[in-house]
Structures are given as structure tokens and as C-alpha cells.
């Protein structure tokens, strides 16, 4: 069974060949290319990875992601982005995904009412056409919703039970104004001591098409690696989603300097020490291979 890193980012310096947005986390001159990731993967016996688009939602902004998928078709699958205000999201999604290795799209918003008591018709949610397209084309939806959107999830998941859903980064839902970069340039998300997602995203465990990433620990923990204070969250996710619906990921490149890629490859056994060998194999790649339909390496 392959080991699969189920959520990483790669990007190059801004160039005419590979245009992208410039942000504080991805300044113009910074590059974290696929080859650097592959070096780390080789060193630590990781076979494959999911490249998640960063640097803009337009077709052009996906140039580097598409280049990597074409260059290493048996190593990577891709997740693209789609502008929420796109007049024809299905066209955008098809243009990016048809025969390219992009298997799905990441959403940060769900586009429904902020008040759960005002939730009415799911078809009125702004992302409904995206879910509709995902259902029709069998795309995966990669979700890292805002906390104000968390209550909208079950309505969409219920409406589209055939859509494969991956909740990113421990199923967390960042609050407005709670995102910063630390001194190493890594995302830091301020969260409350009590895990509020027990009452929202964790409740999605009932739906068999929903899986969760075990990743992003560095962004939520105030402790150093292996972030032992998050062991309880991992245990709850294991209890609720079960062994077959959890996927390990590193969130490369943000973890390269601290704690290091190699350290992240052993985090699951540290935070879930009672797993059997076969269960560990599932989380470290078996589930991603099956759920995301990774090709065999040639």
C-alpha cells in the first residue's frame, strides 16, 4: 500500500509562465517547487501526494499545478480552486479537470445564510452549482469552511450524497480574524480551548461520503511537535469517522522548517499510539488511494 501525503502546496516564483497571486504567505520571490517536495517524499518513503492549488482561482493561476500534474502523473493528483462568483462554475471546473489530474476543488465558503435559524432552501446556497457539478462529474470537494459556514455543510452533503467530501485540517473551521502567520511564515489559527467543531463538522461523521484530514496540527496547537494537546481531537475523529475515513497529510511546505517533513511522517503514531499496523497503513495512504482513486505508480 502506498504512503500518500493527502494535502500539500507547491508553487514557483511569479513568472509569465506560471502567474499567481502574491500574498504574505506566498511572496513573489518565494518558491516551493514540486521537486523539493519529491526530494522530501523520497527521503521519507512517501509515494504520492495531493497538490492543492494556492495562488489564485483563475485558470491561468493553475498553470504551475497543471504543469506538475503533467510532469509527474503517477505521483500527484490535484485539487483546484473555483471563484465563488464565477457565472459558469461548471465550465471553469471542467476546463481545469478534464484529463489533467485535477480531481476536485477546494472551497472556503459555502455561500448560505450565516444564521442556522434562517437556513432555508439549499438550492439557494451560492455554492450549490459547484456541488451540482461535482456530483455530475464525480469531483471531490475539499473543504476548509469558515466557522460561520459550518452549519451549512449537512444540507449540502445530504443533497449530494454521491459527492466525495474531504474536510481539511482536522475538520477545523477558522474564525474570522483568527488567521495569522507566525515568525516562520506558517499559518496560525487561534482556536478556543473547547473544540467547537464537535458540534458542527465532527457531526458530519454520519455521512459516509465525508472524510477528514489529520493535518495542520502546527497551526492549531500552542505546543511544539508532536502537539500532544491535540491527541484528544485525533481520538474523537477516530471514534466518530472510523479508521477508513481519516487521511494523513503534512501541509507542505509550511512544516518544512518546523517541525520538518520527516517528523510529520510519524505524527499519527504519536497522537494515535494504539493503532494497529494495518490501521496506520490505512491512514498513511490506504484511505487516500481508495477514496481519491490514486493511480498505481509506474
Amino acid at each position: 500500500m502506498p504512503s500518500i501525503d493527502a494535502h500539500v502546496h507547491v508553487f514557483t516564483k511569479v513568472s509569465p509562465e506560471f502567474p499567481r497571486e502574491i500574498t504574505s504567505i506566498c511572496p513573489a520571490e518565494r518558491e516551493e517547487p514540486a521537486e523539493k517536495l519529491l526530494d522530501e517524499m523520497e527521503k521519507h518513503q512517501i509515494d504520492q501526494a495531493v497538490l492543492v492549488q494556492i495562488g489564485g482561482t483563475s485558470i491561468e493561476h493553475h498553470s504551475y499545478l497543471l504543469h506538475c500534474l503533467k510532469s509527474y502523473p503517477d505521483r500527484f493528483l490535484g485539487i483546484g480552486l473555483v471563484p465563488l462568483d464565477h457565472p459558469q462554475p461548471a465550465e471553469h471546473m471542467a476546463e481545469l479537470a478534464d484529463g489533467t489530474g485535477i480531481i476536485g476543488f477546494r472551497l472556503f465558503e459555502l455561500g448560505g445564510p450565516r444564521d442556522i435559524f434562517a437556513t432555508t432552501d439549499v438550492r439557494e446556497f451560492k455554492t450549490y452549482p459547484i456541488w451540482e457539478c461535482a456530483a455530475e462529474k464525480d469531483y471531490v470537494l475539499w473543504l476548509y469552511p469558515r466557522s460561520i459556514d459550518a452549519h451549512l455543510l449537512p444540507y449540502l452533503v445530504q443533497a449530494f450524497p454521491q459527492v466525495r467530501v474531504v474536510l481539511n485540517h482536522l475538520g477545523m473551521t477558522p474564525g474570522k480574524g483568527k488567521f495569522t502567520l507566525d515568525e516562520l511564515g506558517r499559518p496560525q489559527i487561534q482556536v478556543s480551548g473547547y473544540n467547537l467543531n464537535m458540534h458542527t463538522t465532527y457531526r458530519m461523521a454520519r455521512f459516509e461520503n465525508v472524510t477528514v484530514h489529520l493535518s495542520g496540527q502546527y497551526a492549531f496547537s500552542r505546543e511544539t511537535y508532536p502537539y500532544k494537546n491535540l491527541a484528544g481531537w485525533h481520538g474523537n475523529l477516530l471514534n466518530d469517522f472510523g479508521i477508513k475515513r481519516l487521511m494523513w497529510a503534512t501541509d507542505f511546505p509550511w512544516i518544512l522548517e518546523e517541525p520538518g517533513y520527516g517528523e510529520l511522517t510519524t505524527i499519527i503514531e504519536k497522537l494515535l499510539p494504539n493503532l494497529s499496523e494495518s490501521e496506520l497503513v490505512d491512514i498513511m495512504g490506504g484511505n487516500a488511494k481508495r477514496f481519491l482513486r490514486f493511480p498505481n505508480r509506474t
Partner: protein
Amino acid sequence: MIRPTSEQKTQWEQEGYLVFENAIQGDQLKRLQSVFDYWAAECKEEWLDKVEGGEAAATFYDIPSPLEKDPIFIDLIDHPSYYGALMEFTDDDLILLGPQVRTVAPWPVSYTGWHPDVGQSNPLHIKVQIYVNDVPTGSGEFGFVPRSHKPNSGPYKRPLLQESMPGYKTFPGKAGTAIMFNSCGWHTSMDNASDVPRKSIILIYEKRTPGRIGPEQFAAISEYCTTPERRKLFSLAD
């Protein structure tokens, strides 16, 4: 003070719960409903702002500091319908930990899974859930696994579906019903498939242990606590 009957004491010991129908009734219930609705509406926007900031869950909300908002909430804490039972089960050494005046939205999934609140090593921890509106079957009613509070029960595991929990019992009820349960026992809120929010008040008590609640915790309502019994219940200075 109305002490529990021998049948009630046996049920409490054996099953881990008691139901008090019409615990709150008549004009008091009407006033409670009115006060609840007023403050729930007043506090809603603040809650939504907290949800947006990642500081509150999107699926339910509690009225903050309810005891300071209206004395009717204080009167629920030592309400004669169930206060005698609380005192009996804690050997007359009861403290209030706090109230949760809670509105739970209808949602495709219950906002919480099956769980116990405390372990067996905790001092006796009791909750009383009072329905403020009618809570029929399928609208977020309380669920409890009888006998799951006992040390030799289980092991239990949170199932994916609320109705998959072995041996559970649900407690639909009319407004004013109070359900007392040992929080060591596994409990939940069942799915709410209706279009009506569940409004309830959850009162949390414990058998006293030194220093558990400081005298400052409920100091803001000190003026309403004039009897020695009440001051003790609210951990206020004599």
C-alpha cells in the same frame, strides 16, 4: 422541601434519572417562556458574531449570564419540584456549577453525540434539563442510557446514528417537564427533524467539594440569595 419517594430513590440509584412532569407550570411557566424568548432574541446577534469569530458553535446558543438577567432563572435553581431530590442525593451538600439557557436549532444531525459529562471519579454530578417549549419525539428530545451511570456498565462507544445506541431511552415531554440525570451516564440530544428549535434550560450541580466554586462566581446575584440555604447552594460567603 419535598423529598423523593422511596420509588424515586430506587429509580435514581438503579436507572440514573428521574422525570418531573409539570415541574414548572401555570403562570410561572408562561413567564419563563416569555423571559426566555426575550433574552434569546436579545442575545442572538452577539452569538452570531461569536460564531463568525470561531468563538461559539453555529448549531446552538446559550443566553450569557442568565441568572443576572432575570430572577426567574435563579428561582429555577432551587425549585421545589426537584430541589428536595437534589438535596437528598447529595446528602444536603449541593452546589450549583452553572445554568445553560439553551436554544438548539433544527438541523439534519443532532448538535451533539452520545457522551458522559464526567468520569466515575468525579463527585456526584447532576444535571436537570427543563423543557421550555414542548419537545415531542423527533425534535431534539433528551436521550439517556439507563444504568450507564454505574461503574460496572458499558463499555459504551459513541455511535454514528443517535438511534444506534444500545439500551437508550428518549424523553419527549411537554413544556415545564424537568429531567434529572446522573451526568456519569451516557446522554445526548436526539435529532431534531422538526422545524422548531428546542428551548431548554440545563442546570448543572455537583456534590460539594472544597474550593470547587469560589464566592465570586455568583456574587452578582448575591442580593437574591438571602437565606443561608441559598447562599450555600450558590457558594456565596455567609
